[in-house]
């Protein structure tokens, strides 16, 4: 080089510099992770309110009145200052609204009385107040302070309620033949084809049964009435600040001394709440109680869907990948399946409604359930039609994942099997499908995640706010595919948007959302573990 001065390379402009690219992508990744963390935190924190026992406050106000309740949060103020406190006071029967806004400036004294109780009720929402006294089943008064006597009285009432439930169930069981006979008579009376002779026979049969069962039923009814009377007399009496409130023991689900709980007891209480949430039925327009029917409906629906979609999707993928050639027809089929994945789910809902519910369901009703018409059996939304609709919706997911699994099977295995004299079916069943299992499982899991979170098509094909009965019960044929069902995703939509009592429904909505999230995460983690195990069994040596 002629000149000896060291040459300096010009600094590249920022955008051309590699560092900017790294920084931008890293920041984007960070943002994504942050959003995920915030999402989890918002859902979990809001749901925790539902499970964690809050302290019960007694507030004395400037006007001399007292209120008892749990502080939910501070409301935003219009002028930028401190807003009022939102207090959950419960006791819906007193004012209709179980929440109350209290101006903080008006609070003179606030304390957490040791005798404050929160009572979860089967009817009427939560009852809050200071414990005054209690009347047992026998009508005896239990004074405050005698915790043992109170616990005994509560336990006795709970036992009485269980006995009452048992006896009502027994009554229904004993009466079932009569109910069925009456139902048969009623059906005959309404149908135009029945002749008078049959009608009289049916009526006579019902009357005979009624006479036969009368003594047993009357004994049972008397026992039920007696228990109802005893329960109606028993009550917990609370001081709500304004009045004293009698909480009937017939409705008490759980009584909590909110301000006496230590940390461990709080945790146990929360765990108990979580279990009740999972395994009990909803109450009070879904704003209280549990989500068991929704959880059950989701799981059953997903199971039925898997049974329908897996054979179909796997077979289609096997045909497309293993047998179909490379012609234009295969190209069209391929594109069609890929595009199916992008079709909005409401379109599948409409398809399910038109084809499964009205089309197939209507035909089934006309041929098999003509007796019940005009009230539909299968000709209306139900868990079977919802499952099949979601099966159609998730077919592309299964086909695409299975094909990827098939593509990952080395062709040398196929050739090796064929060269050993295995025919096509044997090669497929013995070599190809087992090795494609990770892909097939991935498809199944993706389909399940999708189905668990879908709402729109379900609303059209059978998911309801409140199902009167589970799709599975002790009555033959045990699995009732025509029944409407509850679904977690729809439940979230329902309690968050359709609830008459927004404040009461809020924790329920978040708890259900959290459960949905946990459900999907658990399914996905299971999938990853299963896939890892299968892959380990089928790993291919390099070289």
């Amino acid at each position, binding site marked *: 080089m002629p000149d000896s001065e060291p040459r300096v390379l010009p600094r590249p402009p920022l955008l051309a510099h590699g560092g900017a690219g790294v920084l931008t992508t890293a920041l984007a990744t960070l943002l994504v992770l942050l959003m995920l963390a915030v999402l989890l935190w918002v859902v979990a924190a809001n749901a925790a309110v539902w499970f964690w026992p809050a302290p019960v406050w007694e507030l004395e106000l400037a006007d001399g009145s007292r209120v008892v309740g749990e502080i939910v949060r501070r409301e935003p103020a219009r002028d930028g200052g401190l807003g009022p406190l939102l207090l959950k006071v419960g006791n819906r029967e007193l004012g209709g609204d179980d929440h109350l806004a209290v101006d903080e400036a008006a609070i003179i004294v606030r304390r957490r009385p040791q005798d404050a109780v929160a009572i979860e009720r089967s009817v009427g929402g939560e009852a809050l107040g200071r414990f005054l006294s209690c009347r047992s089943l026998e009508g005896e008064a239990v004074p405050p302070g005698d915790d043992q006597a109170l616990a005994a009285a509560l336990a006795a009432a709970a036992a009485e309620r269980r006995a009452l439930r048992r006896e009502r169930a027994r009554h229904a069981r004993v009466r079932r033949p009569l109910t069925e006979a009456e139902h048969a008579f009623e059906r005959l009376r309404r149908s135009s084809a029945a002749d008078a002779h049959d009608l009289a026979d049916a009526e006579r049969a019902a009357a005979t049964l009624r006479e036969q069962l009368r003594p047993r039923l009357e004994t049972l009814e008397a026992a039920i009435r007696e228990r109802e009377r005893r329960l109606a007399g028993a009550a917990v009496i609370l001081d709500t600040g304004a009045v004293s409130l009698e909480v009937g023991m017939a409705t008490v689900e759980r009584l909590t001394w909110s301000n006496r709980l230590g940390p461990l007891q709080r945790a146990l209480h929360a765990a108990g709440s979580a279990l009740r949430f999972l395994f009990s039925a909803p109450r009070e327009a879904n704003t209280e109680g549990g989500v068991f029917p929704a959880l059950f409906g989701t799981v059953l629906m997903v199971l039925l869907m898997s049974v329908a979609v897996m054979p179909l999707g796997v077979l289609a993928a096997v045909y497309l990948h293993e047998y179909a*050639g*490379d012609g234009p027809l295969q190209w069209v089929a391929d594109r069609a399946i890929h595009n199916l994945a992008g079709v909005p789910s409401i379109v599948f809902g409409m398809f399910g409604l038109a084809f499964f519910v009205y089309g197939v369901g209507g035909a089934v009703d006309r041929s098999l359930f003509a007796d019940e018409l005009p009230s539909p059996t299968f000709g209306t939304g139900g868990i079977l039609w919802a499952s099949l609709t979601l099966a159609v919706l998730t077919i592309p997911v299964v086909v695409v994942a299975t094909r990827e699994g098939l593509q990952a099977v*080395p062709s*040398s*295995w196929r*050739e*090796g*099997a*064929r*060269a*050993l*004299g*295995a*025919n096509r079916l*044997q090669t497929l069943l*013995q*070599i190809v499908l*087992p*090795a494609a299992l990770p892909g097939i499982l991935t498809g199944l899991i993706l389909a399940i995640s999708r189905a668990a979170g879908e709402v729109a098509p379900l609303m059209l094909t059978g998911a309801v706010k409140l199902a009167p009965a589970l799709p599975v019960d002790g009555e033959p044929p045990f699995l009732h595919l025509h029944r409407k069902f509850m679904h977690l995703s729809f439940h979230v939509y329902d309690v968050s948007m359709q609830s008459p009592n927004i404040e009461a429904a809020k924790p329920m909505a978040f708890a259900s959302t959290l459960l949905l999230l946990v459900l999907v995460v658990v399914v996905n983690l299971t999938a990853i573990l299963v896939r890892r195990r299968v892959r380990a*069994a*089928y*790993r*291919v*040596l390099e*070289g």
Partner: protein
Amino acid sequence: MTQGDDPVLETRELSLHYGPVRALAEVDLRVPGRRITAVIGPSGCGKTTLLRCFNRMNDAYPKVRVSGRVFVEGVDVTTSEVDLESLRKRVGMVFQKSNPFPMSIRRNVTFGPRMSGVRDPARLAEIAEHSLRLADLWAEVSHRLDESALDLSGGQQQRLCIARALANEPDILLLDEPASSLDPISTAKIEDTLVRLKERYTIVIVTHNLQQAARVADFTAFLMAGRLVEFGATARMFTNPREKLSEDYITGRFG
């Protein structure tokens, strides 16, 4: 091969096209029984294609067109009536890259017999031991038959593939560059195995390794651009090739 001896494998005017590309052109080859025949030639000359004609493995490729005839033990196997599964049981094949299935050694060896309906565990165990002994693998794996075949070394995997082909009790064994990705020791083991096996089997081995052909093969076929240039006893062919092309190839002037 003396005159009058019936060849075990024979092609007559065998041509094969992949779409517009001609891979084999009027190949006339007579492979004698119970001998090792090597097929040599430069890359892409049609060695593998020729080998796959004997068990009809070319059928798996789309757009393959075959003309001429292929006889296996006197039977024309190019016709559509041929039962491919039983043909492939009689004509075993070992591939260039070892391809044990992702299952135990035992299940790998017995795959062929199981696919033809052998269920009896005692019979399957007998087949497995016999085949593994033939492939000189028994001593190394007899104590771990139920471990994954994928855990074997490359050379062991290839001998497992030989054993797997032998388990079908074939008459003919086709090997497609079986040692091309193996180290010299594994290669020598496989060559020893093949030399012992020729007492019972007719073996055709495709190889691009001339020394290997010289070491193991009784006969050698030299293929170039889809044509059979020369066929003859290996010793004669390597010392005194008749064709100029063969001589150039063997002396390393190309290929």
